[in-house]
């Protein structure tokens, strides 16, 4: 793709994001457990990465030269699964096996279970370290593939995040692009009240990262930030994406209680209709 998305491309991406959101709601409902809020907030970022940027091949998920993605906020597994299924890594109907016995779709991503998962995650704070190791390996191999990761804003409360923040900057891993899904909420409430990680952009600048601040639901802005990150030399890039937890489902938006609660079947019907633009009251 060129350096700017066409309106047609944006429309296509928005279509993918909508399908991914509907599947997130449907799969979490079917599982009657999981994390819808933080999955919906990250849907536009994953859509843009997987459908407009990353070099990945569903037919050859182990390709050495592929771009890598680490879902550091592993509890948002539904958005990763829905994105991989949308991309064709596995059949969409398998999404409904989420969190069930013998499923490849574990509650948190397991790289040994499912094609397309580059790292097993779920315990917060670890993904950025692993992504840094991947970026270091790419440099050692002289490969120009890139590594992407997405962290939660609450996740920034984990001390280990700052160990890896130092590491990636110290070793000038400019092939690493990270996102913070800055939806402002964690399980127990607003991040600013539970244990404030604010101000987020200033912290990453102080750790010598290149920082870009965007609206995490603006596909053009996400795409542009990714392109800019590719031009930055000598520094990893942190894209601080302001998002809405539960984005796309009005009843879920900006509500911490939808962090880890599944909708009822009735709610699911309503929410999916809403996402598909067929509003039901």
């Amino acid at each position: 793709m060129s350096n700017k998305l066409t309106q047609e491309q944006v429309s296509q991406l928005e279509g993918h994001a909508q399908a991914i959101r509907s599947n997130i709601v449907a799969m979490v409902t079917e599982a009657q457990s999981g994390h819808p809020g933080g999955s919906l907030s990250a849907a536009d970022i994953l859509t843009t990465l997987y459908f407009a940027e990353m070099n990945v091949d569903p037919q050859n998920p182990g390709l050495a030269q592929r771009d890598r993605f680490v879902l550091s906020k592993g509890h948002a597994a539904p958005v990763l699964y829905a994105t991989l299924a949308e991309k064709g890594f596995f059949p969409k109907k398998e999404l409904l096996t989420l969190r069930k016995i013998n499923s490849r779709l574990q509650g948190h991503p397991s790289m040994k279970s499912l094609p397309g998962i580059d790292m097993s995650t779920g315990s917060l704070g670890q993904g950025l370290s692993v992504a840094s190791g991947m970026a270091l390996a790419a440099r050692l191999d002289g490969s120009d593939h890139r590594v992407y990761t997405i962290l939660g804003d609450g996740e920034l409360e984990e001390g280990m995040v700052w160990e890896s923040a130092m590491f990636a900057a110290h070793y000038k891993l400019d092939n690493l692009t990270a996102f913070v899904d800055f939806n402002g909420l964690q399980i127990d409430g607003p991040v600013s009240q539970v244990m404030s990680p604010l101000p987020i952009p200033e912290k990453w600048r102080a750790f010598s990262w290149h920082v870009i601040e965007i609206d995490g639901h603006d596909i053009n802005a996400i795409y542009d930030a990714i392109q800019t990150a590719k031009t930055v030399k000598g520094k990893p890039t942190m894209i601080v994406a302001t998002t809405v937890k539960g984005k796309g489902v009005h009843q879920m938006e900006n509500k911490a209680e939808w962090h880890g609660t599944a909708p009822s079947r009735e709610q699911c019907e309503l929410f999916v209709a809403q996402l598909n633009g067929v509003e039901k009251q």
Partner: protein
Amino acid sequence: MGLATREAYGEILKELGKKHQNIVVLDADLSKSTKTAVFGKAFPDRFFNVGIAEQNLMGVGAGLATAGKIPFVSTFAMFAAGRAFEQVRNSICYPKLNVKIAATHAGLTVGEDGASHQSIEDISLMRSIPNMTVIVPADAEETRQAVAFAAEYQGPVYIRLGRMSVPDLFTADYKYEHGKAVELVDGTDVTIMATGIMVAPAKAAAETLMSAGIRARVLNFHTIKPIDKEAIIKAATDTGAIVTCEEHSIIGGLGSAVAEVLVENMPVPMERVGVMDTFGESGTPATLLVKYHLTADDIVNAVRKVISRKK
């Protein structure tokens, strides 16, 4: 005295670095102590200091392994197995990534640094994680071969190394066989099973016992996981009494691993020589081993006790 196992680790790592271009070494600001600096000097492009950040040490190792590198990550056992336990579990063992954790300064014989740095729980912690392999070499030669084995093996490995010099038990014609206990002395009255720095005192104890007419078999358990069940059952069958010896808590280490096999297969009287569920303290390694009952004499006493319990 021979080399400390950490010294042998540094040497062999450098040798392996020539052979395996995929070996990458990470350390957390202890490279002069863990001896990874030897590798770092020879291969500066494949050596990375992560600073005092052991959790990140494990995470970066995991990331390198996903791309086919063979990361050897080193720090003190306290920090590798203790501080970074959950990173080892979730980012290395759960996805079965090919990371080699070579942890030095294990046990009481760290010495003067005291209890905060004396890891006596690491075997227990590491062997409880699925997919993990646990190796505790007894001397320099066994360390060289165990580390070479780890480089070839696919999957996570924890190698427990010590700070102090230990006697050479093996020569270059020794052949490390992963998962197989090594019989150092044959005997029929009792079996002494030892690991790491306790193998040498176990041999000495057997000599003392021999002069008293007690024929003790001595087995070196360099591999704690997978444990050599066959050798344990055979020893129980042949000798009817067992003493385990380790520079580690009696909870969860070699003694526990052996007891688990015995109770399910061939229960016989057993005694454990190890750290008796207590923290250590500052002191020279020699004085610590005496105070915490980890000497050849303590093994002899445990053998006499276990033999008195035989029916």
